[in-house]
């Protein structure tokens, strides 16, 4: 996937979550980018996003970062045994990630928020997956040329 799209997606999710809504869009963004990219840079980015969120929402600094890193760590463990580039994984990971995040930080309307966020994650994943596949095909073509 194009790095520009990833960065834009993360910044947009950050703006929405820090000033406007309680839904954990940054968590969803990190999950989707991790699944699509599977590169190391997403870890420090998730960590920094967590720090910025803590500063903007006045939570103890480090708490959201810790949650994001532990969440990605659990996914990386799961990834060693099973395939994660699937819709059902995105839905379940987003569901459990969101529900845990909301129970820790924003317990208001957590079931409704979790369901909405999980379906949004599916939708965004299906769109970004196309970019990712197209990008991969383009790279392969360049390689063979």
């Amino acid at each position, binding site marked *: 996937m194009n790095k520009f799209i990833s960065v834009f997606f993360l910044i947009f999710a950050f*703006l*929405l*979550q*820090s*000033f*406007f*809504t*309680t*839904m954990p869009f940054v968590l969803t963004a990190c999950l989707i980018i991790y699944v699509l990219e*599977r*590169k*190391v840079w997403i*870890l*420090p980015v998730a*960590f920094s996003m*967590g*720090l*910025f969120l803590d*500063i*903007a*929402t*006045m939570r*103890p*600094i*480090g*708490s959201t*970062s*810790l949650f994001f*890193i*532990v969440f*990605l*760590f659990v996914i*990386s463990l799961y*990834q*060693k045994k099973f395939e994660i580039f699937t819709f059902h994984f995105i839905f379940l990971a987003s569901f459990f990630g969101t529900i845990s995040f909301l129970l820790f930080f*924003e317990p*208001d*309307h957590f079931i*409704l*928020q979790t369901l909405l966020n999980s379906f949004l994650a599916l939708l965004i994943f299906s769109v970004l997956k196309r970019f990712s596949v197209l990008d991969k095909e383009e790279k392969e073509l360049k390689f063979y040329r």
Partner: protein
Amino acid sequence: MVFMQKKGNFPLFLFLILISVALIALSKFGFLNGLEGLLQKSFSPFQKISYMIFRTSSNDKENSQNQNIDLFNKITDSKTLEKDNLALRDQFQTSYPKSKNLLPAKIVGAPAFIPGVSEPKILIIDKGAKDKVKEGFAVVYKNILVGKVTKTSSFLSKVSILTSGDFSFTAKTTSSGLGVIKGTDGAVTLQNVLLSEELKKQDIVLTNGDINENGVGFPPNLIVGKIISVEKKPSALFQSAMVEPILDFSKLTMVFVVLSNE
């Protein structure tokens, strides 16, 4: 593509987890207050602009689609100024609380589940400890109670709204019933009112005043809301009532911190 499982990133995970834990500990003990303040100060203008852009775009979608960025910014600025002027004029025409005790503060963040539809539980305002704001100070709009300051940093403060359920306080009705106000899931209830007291629909609920020795707390006679239903059972010890706040907290752009309770 470099896959993470091949590289074995356990040390990086562990490193970031340890840093996070250390940061939480330092933040809890207040060692990061200075750094946090600096970062919040640098974020603050950005936060204000983002908040106003999102707020304006949600209110006036049709117009915003047809405007270029310059025009959009001008309109946002003028609307902000107009709202601020109106809020300031209204507040300073209100005789109580005294305007010299009030600190105007702009709302820079109000996260809610569905913005504009759900009520926010907290507000982030652009005034902090540097402006002498302390935890526990009341936050009002005109003479209506909005909530109280629950956390401060150097340049920002977090305000818990009346309906958030984060705090409770004593309140009285205009027909002199005394009870305890508690926020629960977006609603406010007046509890622990003696059966002998008379609670009526449409009665106005006011703060009773519970300022402690440090001058922190709610001043008396701020409007909390009006009673919309009363629950009274002869077998129960107390009666309770549902109270509807007068303000729509999701529409606020400016509030006032009660600095001194003289």
